[in-house]
């Protein structure tokens, strides 16, 4: 007995020692899910130095790559069918086909293991791979190949009776529901689903969970169900399926046509969706234009005027043009020469539910030789990048008038832009292209910077530096109507093209 105890103590001591000797803490994080034609499988993520990273040996195995390490040089290569990419420890860039591709976090080497951020798959591996690789960090999905993976959100609008459950699918695609004993199976016309389901149930619905097949969702019901009515609609580029469930034995709501059973008024607890009342809402319907600076904050100075005056003039002209030609609703963050802080600008844009945001500025440089137009979108810092994975998760239930609860999404003020980065980048590219065509013809670069204003915007957002007030030729030009008209025409072209592109991707 004593000997056994001794052995156990020794084993525990050895284990503790081994644990203590392990290289720096590698804490497992929530795994990502790899979706392929064959199904789903988890991909382990590891927290290394507070960064969420994937182990490259796992990636090599999953994607059939050869990982070779040059231990002495602190570098490694990954090859796939004769194509190779090079990595170096602690570098936030990867060499792909001789080009440097930047990553949101550096590559990490710990002992014999190599780690890289998940974006590595899309930005570095995809170019040498023969299938499309798409990373959706917020949903923790890695999609391999051309698969249709729409985002499906479910919510219990009202516990009822009847219990009302709404499903939303974006981009829109076919969605149907069928009753199967004590459960309802919702089927989406897709290869797989990016799901956002409520945690608990409500009314006759006990639970909403992913189905056995990759494209189904199951509603488990409390006891027998008398009837189900499912109404599909498509509005605002979202396919909606509203399911009303009656408890066992109740008359089906469809029979309400008969005079004997007048249809009861809608339960007050069902919230009215303004979008349904106002009709379908077009993408790019509300455009927010932000004339930079204002009041005591003059911005850059030139002989022809100050930045705050010129950008306000351009913003007013742009508003008129966009309203006239595109029939859009255009909101200006300031109509006159007054100082407004960053929070107020973001609040005006967010509360008006802007579909896109353009901030207008004039640039300055230490050298008078620098000229040109530049389009910026947000370069998130590391905290923001990490938080991207958390953004979609924060859903809370709030009580609604008449009882019941409705889940609403909470987005941290400072992280609002995180989920729009990709689209903001596309908007920036379109604006850069259109402005170059309309103004000087010189290439207009798209740049990224940690811009204070853009962080709180819950919509695709860019900042346009129209010209350099420190450059004598441009300073003279910006005062002219020709220049202002060229800029607003260029911005108009870009906004029109952006709207078309978004429509196309949503209806595809």
């Amino acid at each position, binding site marked *: 007995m004593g000997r056994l105890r001794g052995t156990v103590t020794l084993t525990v001591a050895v284990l503790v020692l081994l644990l203590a000797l392990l290289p720096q803490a590698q804490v497992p994080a929530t795994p990502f899910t790899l979706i392929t034609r064959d199904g789903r499988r988890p991909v382990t993520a590891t927290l290394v130095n507070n960064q969420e990273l994937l182990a490259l040996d796992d990636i090599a195995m999953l994607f059939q790559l050869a990982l070779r390490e040059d231990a002495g040089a602190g570098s490694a290569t990954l090859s796939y069918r004769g194509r190779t990419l090079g990595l170096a420890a602690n570098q936030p860039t990867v060499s792909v086909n001789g080009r440097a591709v*930047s990553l949101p976090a550096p590559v990490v080497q710990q002992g014999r293991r190599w780690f890289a951020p998940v974006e590595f798959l899309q930005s570095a591996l995809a170019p040498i791979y023969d299938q499309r690789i798409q990373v959706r960090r917020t949903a923790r999905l890695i999609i391999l190949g051309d698969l249709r993976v729409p985002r499906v959100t479910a919510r219990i609008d009202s516990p009822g009776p009847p219990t009302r459950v709404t499903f939303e699918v974006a981009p829109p695609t076919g969605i149907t529901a069928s009753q199967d004993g004590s459960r309802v199976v919702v089927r989406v016309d897709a290869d797989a689903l990016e799901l956002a389901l409520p945690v608990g149930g409500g009314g006759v619905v006990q639970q909403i969970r992913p189905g056995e097949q990759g494209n189904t969702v199951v509603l488990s019901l409390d006891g027998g169900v008398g009837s189900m009515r499912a109404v599909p609609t498509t509005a605002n580029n979202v396919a909606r399926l509203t399911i009303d469930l009656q408890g066992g034995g109740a008359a089906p709501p469809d029979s309400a046509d008969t005079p004997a059973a007048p249809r009861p008024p809608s339960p007050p607890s069902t919230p009215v969706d303004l979008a349904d009342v106002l009709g379908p809402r077009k993408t790019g319907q509300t455009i927010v234009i932000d004339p*930079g*600076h204002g009041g005591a*904050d*003059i*911005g*850059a*100075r030139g002989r022809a005027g100050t*930045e705050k005056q010129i950008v306000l003039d351009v913003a007013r002209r742009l508003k008129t043009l966009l309203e006239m030609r595109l029939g859009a609703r255009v909101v200006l963050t300031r109509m006159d020469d007054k100082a407004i*802080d*960053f929070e107020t600008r973001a609040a005006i844009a967010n509360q008006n539910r802007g579909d896109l945001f353009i901030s207008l*500025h*004039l*640039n*300055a*440089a*230490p*050298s008078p*030789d*620098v000229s040109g137009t*530049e389009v*910026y979108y947000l370069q998130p*810092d*590391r*905290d923001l990048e990490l938080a991207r994975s958390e953004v979609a998760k924060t859903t809370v239930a709030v009580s609604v008038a008449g009882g019941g609860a409705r889940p609403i999404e909470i987005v941290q003020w400072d992280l609002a832009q995180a989920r729009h980065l990709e689209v903001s980048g596309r908007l920036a590219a379109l604006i850069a292209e259109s402005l170059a065509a309309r103004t000087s013809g010189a290439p207009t670069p798209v740049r990224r*910077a*940690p*811009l*204070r*204003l853009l*962080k709180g915007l819950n919509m695709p957002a860019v*900042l346009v*530096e129209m010209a*350099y*007030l*420190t450059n004598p030729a441009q300073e003279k030009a910006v005062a002219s109507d020709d220049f202002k008209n060229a800029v607003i025409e260029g911005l108009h072209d870009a906004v029109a093209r952006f709207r078309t592109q978004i429509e196309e991707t949503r209806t595809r």
Partner: protein
Amino acid sequence: MKGRNGLLIGGGILFAILLIATVLLSVERFVPPRRAAESAPPAAVETATATAHITATLFYMAPDGRTLVPVRREVPLATLAEALGAQILTELFAPAPPPYVSVIPKGTTLRAFYITNRGDAFVDLSPEVTTAHPGGTLAELLTVYAIVNAVTVNLPSVQRVQILVDGKEVDTIAGHVDVRRPLARNASLVKGT
């Protein structure tokens, strides 16, 4: 009694000497040889005169006007990281040596410089950094990252830099670049990287 006390004190001193010797010897053994070699020069310089200088990398406007260029400059040596950081920034805020052009607004001075245990440095600037700034996203990016890069490149213990103006946290220094939190080095703004 007195003799006993003396014996105790003597024994205590002997024990302390032995303890220190053991610690020193074991430290010697565990420090890799490369590190030991590195640590030798600063120890020697500590006793050097006030004219001792070291070469630091400062950042000025690159000839293209859009990026920063690293320039090696002599700055007065200080042994403590905080004092050295202050010397480096003071040199950066001084007029640039020809043919370089400074990206720091004229009149900007360093009010304070300190480093936290987490490797964040705080650079407290005089209000001129805001009031004398020419504005514009580009000029502001150059100002912010000339400071952030100068500190992080020269002081390996510093990972990130937080800019303060007149002792207070600010949103931006000229209306664009977010400086509410510590910023890490930006290599993409530096020419040739």
